[in-house]
Every structure is written in C-alpha cells, then in structure tokens.
C-alpha cells in the first residue's frame, strides 16, 4: 500500500487504541486522538491524508463542528465519518460539509481499509489537479503565482 497517514478521532478509548494498534501492525501511519480539539491540534502539527471522525462525541466540540473546522483549515484532507446511530440528517449534513463518506459502527477492519484507500486516492487526485492548474497559471502569469506564494508563506 502507498504510504498514507491517518488521524482517528473517537472518544471511545478502547475502540481507538485497538484500531490504532491494528492499523500500525499493518504498517499504516496512524495516530489516534480522543477529541475534536486534539484533532485540530494534531493537524496543525503535521500533515494527515485522511481523518476518520466519530460524529457523536459528547462534551466539547462535536463531530460536525470538528468536520467544519478541518475542512476550513485543511481542505485537502479527506474526512470519513463514523457514526453509531446513523441518523440521516447528520449524515446529510456531513456530506454537505465535505465529508468523503460515512460509515456505520460497528465496522470490520476489512471493510474500513478500502474506504480509507478510496479517500486517500481522492486526496491524491485533488492534489494533482491543483498542481496542474498551478503550473498552467505559472506558465501564463508567473508574477501572480510568485505573489501568491509570498502571501502563503506569511
């Protein structure tokens, strides 16, 4: 499998630890956090390709809020929603806010991995598209691109 990194966000500690352990056993770069705030902190520190996010997390930021923030700050990071009760409204909200997919708990790892892969592929494809667009622009308006990069560095 390609090298890709996953951030798992879930307040169920047992679930989180076991899943992270199993992913790492398969040599997937996986980190687990137990709250939405911690997830945003982690995303500031390093880059993750895919985030697996539990929707219902009582106390503090809930799943949907976290999703909104992630998509705002790190739009290229794909988010998969995990839900224990699968209410139609929240899943629609999630999709509208840019989640890649939503999955129901309990889910077997064998079913989860392909979904993560698909999310990763989506991310890669998006990045490629952006790169291509940039190159085009660079060729035509080099000045503008250089200006943009200067601003991004700030």
């Amino acid at each position: 499998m390609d090298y890709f990194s996953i951030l798992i966000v879930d307040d169920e500690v047992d679930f989180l630890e076991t899943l992270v352990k199993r992913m790492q056993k398969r040599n997937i770069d996986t980190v687990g956090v137990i709250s939405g705030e911690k997830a945003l902190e982690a995303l500031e520190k390093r880059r993750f390709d895919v985030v697996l996010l539990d929707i219902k997390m009582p106390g503090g930021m809930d799943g949907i809020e976290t999703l909104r923030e992630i998509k705002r700050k790190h739009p290229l990071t794909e988010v998969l929603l995990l839900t224990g009760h699968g209410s139609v409204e929240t899943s629609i909200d999630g999709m509208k806010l840019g989640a890649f997919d939503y999955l129901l708990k309990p889910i077997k790892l064998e079913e989860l991995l392909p979904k993560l892969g698909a999310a990763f592929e989506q991310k890669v494809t998006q990045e490629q598209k952006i790169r291509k667009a940039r190159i085009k622009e660079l060729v035509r308006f080099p000045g503008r691109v250089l200006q943009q990069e200067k601003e991004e560095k700030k």
Partner: protein
Amino acid sequence: MKELLYRNLQRKIISLILVVSFAPLITLGATLYYQFNNTYRQNIDEQIRYRAQAQSEAVDLFLKERTAILNAMADTHTFQDMIDEGSLSRIFEVMNYRAGAFVDLGVIDSEGRHLAYIGPYDLKGRNYQGQPWFDEVMSKGVYKSDVYMGYRNLPHFIIAIRRDEDRNQWILRATIDPDILEKIVRSAQIGRTGDAFLINRDGVYQTLPRFHGIVLSQSNLDTSLFGGRVTVTEITDGKNRNSLYAGSWLKDRKWLLVIKQESDELMSRLFEIRYTEIIIISMGILAIVLTTFFAVRLAIRQLKSSDEKMIGLNAQLVQSDKLAALGKMAAGVAHEINNPLATIIQKTGWMEDLLEEEEFQNSENFEEFRTSIKKIEEHVERARKVVHNMLGYARKMEPRLEDVDVNDTLNQTINILENYARNNNIDIQTDLANDLPIIAGDQAQLQQVFLNLITNAIDAIGKNGLIEAKSRRTDSQIHVSIKDDGPGLSEDEMKKIFDPFYTTKESGKGTGLGLWVSHSIIEKMGGTINVRSGAGLGATFTVEIPIVIPEKK
C-alpha cells in the same frame, strides 16, 4: 360502552325541551280560553239583558198606547155620549181602526153598574161594585188585569180607566186582544231553544210559552229571583239542563218579560272554540313531541359518532406519539449499543491479528481461540442486525411519500417479530414475488400495518403454528397476504373485526384499535384490507394497495 350516558343525556334533553315548550303553550291556551270564556259570557249576558229590556219596553209601550187611547176617548167625550150605544159603537170602531186590539168597550158608572157595552159578551147590566179591580180603578184611576181565559176560550186582559167629569166619575173599560202583545213578546226569542214570554208575579204565563205550558199555566219560575229592572240568572232544570233567564219587569211591576235561552245553545260557539283550540294545541303538542324526539335522537347520534371519531383520532395520535417517542429513544439506544459492539469487533479483530503470529499457531487451543473469535463476531453481527432493523423501523416516523420496497418492508417487520414468534414455536414463512415495483408511499405506516397483521396472527395462533406471508403483483396493485393457521373467525366476527374497539382478546389484552387503524391507513393509501376465514380454518388478511410509481427526482 357509554350507551347509558347517551341515553340519559337524550332523556334529559327531551324532557327539558318538552317541559319548556308545553308549559307556555298550555298556559297560553288556558289563559286565552279563560279570557275568551269570560268575555263571551259577559257578551251573552249583556245581549240577553238588552233584549229583555228592549222587549219589555216594547210591551210597556203597547200597554201605554192602549191606555192612552182609552183616556183620549174618555177625555173627548161626555158620559152621555159614551152611554149612547150608537156613538159608543162608532168610538169603538175608530179605536179598533186606528189602534186595534180592542175586543170590547164598556162604560161603568161610579156605582159599578155596567151601563153601555160594545162587544161580544153579554155584560150590560152587570154590577162590579166590591170587586177588587173596580175598587182599584176607582182609587188609582187605571187598572190592567192579568190575562184570563175569555171569549171563545181565548186569552184576554182588561184595561180600565176612570174619567173624572165634573162631579161625575165613570169608568171606561176595554178588553184587549193579546195577539199583538204575543207577537211582540215572541219576537224576542231566538235560536232553537230560545223562548220569550210574560208571566205575572205568581209565575203564571200571560203569553204562550214556546215549549211547555200554555197561557195561564204555571211556569214554576220564582219571580223573586228577578229583582231590579233587568236580572239575568242561570237556572238548572230537572233534566240537568242549564238555561239563562233574563227577566225584565214592566213598569207596573205586575208582569215580567222573560227571555230564556239554553246555555248549551248560547255557549255552543264557545264550545266550538274550545274544541278547536284543544285540537290545535294537541296538534302543536304532537308536532313538538315528534320533532323533539327525532331532532334530539339525531343530535345524540351525531354526538356519539363524532365522539367515537375523536376517540379514534386520539388513539391514532397516541399511537403516533408512542412511535415517535420510540424513534427518539431508538436512536439513543442504538448509539449506546453500537459503540460497545464496535469496540468488541475491533478487539476480536486484534486478537485475530495476533493469532496470525507464528508463536500462537502452535498452541493447543489455537483452533479454540479461532472459533471462539469467529463466534463472538457472529453474535456481534446478530446484535448489529437487530439494532439496525429496529433503527430502520423507528427512524422513518415522519409521514412522507418516499420510495417503498414492499418486500423489504415486509422482511424488516418479520425480522422484528422473529424472536417473538420463535419463542412461541411459530414459524414465519415468506413467499415474496420478485417483480414488485418500488412504489411511492409512507413506509413507516405500511410497516405499522404489516406489524399489526403479523402480531395479530401470532396472537391468534398462540403457540405452535405457521404464518405465511406472501406478496404478489397484479397490473395495478400489489397484494400482500398474511395467513395463519389459528382458530379462525366466525362470520359475525369477520364483519366486526375492522370496527374500532372490537377485539377477540380478553379484556385488557387488546385495544381493539389495531385493525381499525390499519384499515384507515390502507384506505388513505387508496387500497383495501380484507379477511377470509372460517371457524377453525385460520385466517388470511390481504392488503391490496395501488401501484403508484414514485416521481423521478
């Protein structure tokens, strides 16, 4: 159920309306009648009084005239003229010619000697000295006799006047034919039973009464009853008949003019009125009673039916509320169960991962671990399905038109009830057609109907039995049938089974509303539910719903 309440209410309302209507009606009728009665009687009294008075005045006039003529003749002639038969006869002629009713004429001197006479009797030479009438005319100057049987057995009476001529007093006496008098009196009678006559102070008839008695017979009327000028009194005769008597005394108070009328005839008009009034009031009462009964009965029936409708709607509302609450609870419960399940699955997965490592593969119990893990995962899957199904059922509470897969809905329902059935050793078999189109409908409500039918089937069987669920399509409909091999329904039960509050379960075990609610749900979809059954032959409930293709979005 509340039959008694309704009947009581009906009775109360009807009684109230009847009392409130009758009381014024009857009071009015009675008052009007009483008033009319009084006025009418008063009227009659006045009339008869007036007539009596008028007639007695007419009689008085007649008598006064005769007396006046005698006086006039006496005043204009001398004694010598009068006793001359020739001139007396001429005078007599003139009197009769001009006035009439004189039968004879005689001259009597102050000694009572009858000196001259014209007339049919043989009175000349008679002496009346000492007779009461002679004494009266000599002292009072005028005398009128009662009627007596006279010449030819005809009634007559006498008028005599005294003439004072210088120092001579003489009497002019005439016999009067009461024929005209009779006519005058008779004219006062009216009607079939009316009578008019003259009687003297002793009650002796002076004129001929109409019905009983003759002139000079006793009328048996007590003249002391009649005082004053005119008196009206009511007398009941031997035959229990009431008659009104109006008596008016003549001026000399010797004769009484009596007008008699039978009360019945007088009051006949009144009785007519009374009769008419009673009929009208009776009809009115009848109309009121009939209308009241029917109107109130109708109103109560309406009340009952809308009460029932409201109870039914309330029940439906309660059902909906219950299901909505269930839905909310379900989501929470599902979440609380799914999370532990998710953790369990990951743990077993982890155990499987670890078992992959070589060191474990040689242990004795490796297979045991393997199979145990597999079993745990199986049961987690089983639990997951239950929660998923329950969630699926509870989630779709909002009534909306959505795409409904009938077979799927049926299967979900059967899943929910599978345990319940299995616990009672009841097998549920399905035979679902695979050509059913997706239709537009409210899945939650359809599921509610299936739930109701299958639950009923299970309850009907009790223990040990078979339920067959079938689905088929026709050109325009989808048919779903639930068949059970329970005790079945009788003709009578089949008729009532869809009625609200009808249940064959013992009291407390069923509301009797399930099939009624199901029926109205299917009806609203444009379909029908029917049942085929026989006592001892189980029952098949068939739901037929029209195929409505959902609009392409």
